[in-house]
């Protein structure tokens, strides 16, 4: 049973990940990411972390991806133009590199406790209470700092996005800046 669920959602996750990376339209990419995230949440549950799974859905899909969508809509980002054949080198390099990375990372993970045996999930492991106790005792400082970090992020975002006071799509870009140049490699 567990196997089935695992394979199903694992396949879903990989598939939607590929869509995220390969699709031309950024809106579709974003929505695919949602699918990936939810699949991963299921996998979290399988691994005995229901709270994290819930957080994943709430925060990641519910807030972050929605934010992405807002920005995509705001900037009215269209389909990516055909890139021509320049950039092939980059793609090849990326592909090869990614494969190499895959190999390395897998090996690394495998090497570190990868072959350990695990027992069945216990009530203790899954319980929220234990998690919360640890969070607010051992990691209290980190918790507070994260709060501070979020505050800083909010301020930064506000300042950055509000800089020039122009609305996108309607205002002029700064004439002192050079126009967008040609593409790179």
């Amino acid at each position, binding site marked *: 049973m*567990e196997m089935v669920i*695992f394979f199903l959602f694992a396949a879903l*996750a*990989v598939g939607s990940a590929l869509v*995220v*990376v*390969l699709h031309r339209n*950024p809106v579709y*990419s974003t929505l695919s990411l949602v699918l990936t*995230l939810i699949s*991963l949440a299921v996998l*979290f549950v399988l*691994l005995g*972390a229901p*709270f*994290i799974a819930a*957080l*994943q859905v709430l*925060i*990641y899909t519910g807030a*972050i991806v929605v*934010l*992405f969508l807002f*920005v995509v809509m705001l*900037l009215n*980002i269209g389909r*990516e133009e055909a890139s021509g054949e320049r950039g092939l080198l*980059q*793609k090849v*390099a*990326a*592909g090869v*590199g*990614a494969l190499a990375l*895959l190999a390395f*990372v*897998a090996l690394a*993970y*495998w090497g570190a*406790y*990868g072959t*350990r045996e*695990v027992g069945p999930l216990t009530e203790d492991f899954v319980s929220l209470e234990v*998690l919360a106790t*640890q969070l607010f005792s051992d*990691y209290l400082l980190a918790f507070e700092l994260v709060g501070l970090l*979020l505050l800083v992020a909010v301020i930064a*975002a*506000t300042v*950055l*996005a509000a800089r*020039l006071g*122009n609305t*996108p799509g309607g205002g002029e*870009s*700064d004439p002192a*800046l050079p126009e*967008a140049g*040609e*593409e790179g490699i």
Partner: protein
Amino acid sequence: MVPVSWYLLLAALLFAIGTAGALTRRNGITIFLSIELMLNSVNLTLVAYSRLLDDHTGQLVVFFVLAVAAAEAAVGLALFIALYRHRRTIDLNRINLMRW
């Protein structure tokens, strides 16, 4: 019983996909999404290890990663907005003022 190492393999795969995406795409938003993908693969790894080692530390780290990812997304997107205002494009190939 699914061997936990398969979760790790899946995470590695997702990481590789995310990397390939981050290096290959021209659209800034898409690149960002790929990076989020990479982050999530790391989250999966952490939870898997938490299960393997029977320690909650992994899950707690994921908690923090989540928070940081949120902050990062907010700031990054604000940067994109600012960038778009100046250059009227999100195509990163066109953002090359430091060209020789």
